């Protein structure tokens, strides 16, 4: 649908970062929002700014408050305290049917007694739009989601993927200022889900709308979103671009939640030029981590390192290599594009995860089970986190 559009918009997307511009006025503002259900604090003092045309993801495990936050924006829940504004207007007291926000529900919530076309037209009919206009708009929406031939069907006559697209068309038909997506792809199989993720991105670019997605699937959030807010226990943990979330997690929770990572408990032993020296009793090794050298000796820290940023070999590493661990291969998971090796560090119970891209079809001397190996990584590959 939007191959050409996507190409043309590529450069725009690349330079799209209104959150870095202090003069930019955000479209949606959550200001110190708290939501309590009895004694349970579902959303704990959350403040987020979301900008126009942004694809914003709320990511977290189930029960972290992400859905409640979205439902407050839609108007189904009222904040216990705090303020939510949309385009400068306070939304307090505005009922859901008067908010310029539409939502795509996790269960799709298609009206079973109406046809696909009637479902899509439902929102437009509430606005007293002329019949002809509604008809054109419905046709346009059906074309947008590639369901032109299905307008007369009932929801139960559609497959899961088709239902998902009807739900999307219905929520887009009123051209809302903000589209809310509550786990929109959860019910689809993996391949369809991936296709739909790209379609969603194209659609968002093409229509120039602001999308807010709630998901527990970190891969989905990384693919579609401009920025991701990671939540846990009702609190906002980190808000950043997918790249920053992955490469510069601000705490142990985010590092662990996004992707695979090895975390070593360590103690600061001293500073070095542009780095920090650490000792990890856990694996009985000394590490060097680049970056902030202000840590005081004796502080307990954690050193986190992504599996793909580690090197592995049966040969000893070059003499200038840092952060070297010795161990033996415990398990191998061959994934086609990648191979993940689990290495048990010598003299400890720690299992380290190392992954390698399979760049050739065959290897002269592949690493096998029980091989003695060396694992090492550069000082700037590790992330120094609070313990």
């Amino acid at each position, binding site marked *: 649908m939007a191959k050409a559009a996507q190409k043309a918009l590529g450069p725009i997307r690349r330079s799209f970062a209104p959150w870095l511009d202090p003069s930019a006025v955000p479209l949606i503002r959550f200001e110190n929002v708290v939501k309590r259900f009895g004694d349970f604090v579902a959303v704990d003092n959350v403040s987020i700014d979301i900008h126009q045309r942004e694809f914003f993801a709320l990511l977290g495990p189930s029960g972290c408050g992400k859905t409640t936050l979205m439902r407050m924006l*839609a*108007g*189904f829940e009222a904040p216990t305290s705090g303020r939510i504004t949309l385009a400068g207007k306070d939304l307090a007291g505005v*009922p*859901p*049917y*008067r908010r310029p*926000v*539409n*939502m795509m*529900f*996790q*269960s799709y*919530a298609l*009206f*079973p*007694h109406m046809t696909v076309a009637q479902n899509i037209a*439902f*929102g437009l009919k*509430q*606005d007293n739009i002329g019949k002809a206009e509604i008809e054109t708009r419905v046709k346009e929406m059906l074309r947008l989601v590639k369901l032109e031939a299905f307008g007369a069907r*009932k929801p*139960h*006559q*559609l*497959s*899961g*993927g*088709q239902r998902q697209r009807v739900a999307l068309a*219905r*929520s887009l038909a*009123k051209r809302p200022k903000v589209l809310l997506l509550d786990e929109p792809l959860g019910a689809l199989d993996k391949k369809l889900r991936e296709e739909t993720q790209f379609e969603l991105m194209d659609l968002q670019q093409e229509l120039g709308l602001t999308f807010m997605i709630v998901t527990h699937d970190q891969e989905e959030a990384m693919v579609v979103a401009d920025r991701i807010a990671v939540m846990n226990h009702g609190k906002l943990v980190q808000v950043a671009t997918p790249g920053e979330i992955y490469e510069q997690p601000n705490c142990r929770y985010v590092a662990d939640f996004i992707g695979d990572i090895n975390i070593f408990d360590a103690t600061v032993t001293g500073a070095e030029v542009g780095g920090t020296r650490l000792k990890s009793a856990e694996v009985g090794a000394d590490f060097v981590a680049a970056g902030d050298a202000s840590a005081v000796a004796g502080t307990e820290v954690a050193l986190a390192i992504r599996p793909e940023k580690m090197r592995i070999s049966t040969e000893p590493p070059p003499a200038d290599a840092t952060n070297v661990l010795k161990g033996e291969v415990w398990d191998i998971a061959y994934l086609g594009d990648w191979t993940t090796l689990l290495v048990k560090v010598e003299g400890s119970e720690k299992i380290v995860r190392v992954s390698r891209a399979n760049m050739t079809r065959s290897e002269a001397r592949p690493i096998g089970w029980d091989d003695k190996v060396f694992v090492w990584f550069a000082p700037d590959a590790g992330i120094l986190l609070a313990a």
Partner: protein
Amino acid sequence: MRKGLSGVNIVALTFGFAFLYLPILLLVIYSFNASQLVTVWGGFSTRWYVSLFHNEQLLEAAWVTIRVGLLSATVATVLGTLAAITLVRMGRFPGRTLFSGMVYAPLVMPEVITGLSMLLLFVAIGLDRGFITLALAHITFSMCFVAVVVQSRLISFDRSLEEAALDLGCTPFKTFFVITLPIILPAIVSGWMLAFTLSIDDLVISQFTTGPGATTLPMRIYSSVRLGVKPEINAVCTILIAIVTTGVIIASIATKRAENERMKAERAAAAGR
């Protein structure tokens, strides 16, 4: 798993069905009896059906029964549906337990007590007993059945459908009529049919609450049976059985056909994604 029926199963099935349906079968057979004596077979005849249609009293009673049934089932359906919505949707309000207990009390209350207490009420407020009191009594006891049926449907109702309607700009009031009501309509219809059925075959409560000029069919049948069973009564009962059976068969065929169609559509949709 073994297919087919073992000897024990066949015997059990036969006795079971015989126990349930033999009396009814006998009644149907004897309604075509030419003899005046109910227990003696005197050859095939439809004379009791003919005389039935000349029996003014029975026809009058049948007409009263149908009118009371239609009126009370309709009112009971409206009230029962409202009660169900209150119980499912209003959350916890003061007096909820009491309210739910009172809605369902007629389900377990002995009919004699319901009937007697209604009679006392009607006497106390000086309401002349007749068609109106009969209908009121029927509404009272059939409402709770409607409430039960509609409540169970409402509990499984996906609330996000209503939220979706609100989200798309529909007011809560309109949402109820364009989304909620059409979706729970099958439950409301079966509630109505249940109320109607209960009304047309009620005897005990009707006895207490009726007055002159409002005699229902079950009351007429009961009083004539006390003076000895006339073969005419067999004919009336056979007609009632025929009506009920036809209704049940049509309903089950319709349900089955709708189910088949839905399954077929779903399979087609799944295959042609």
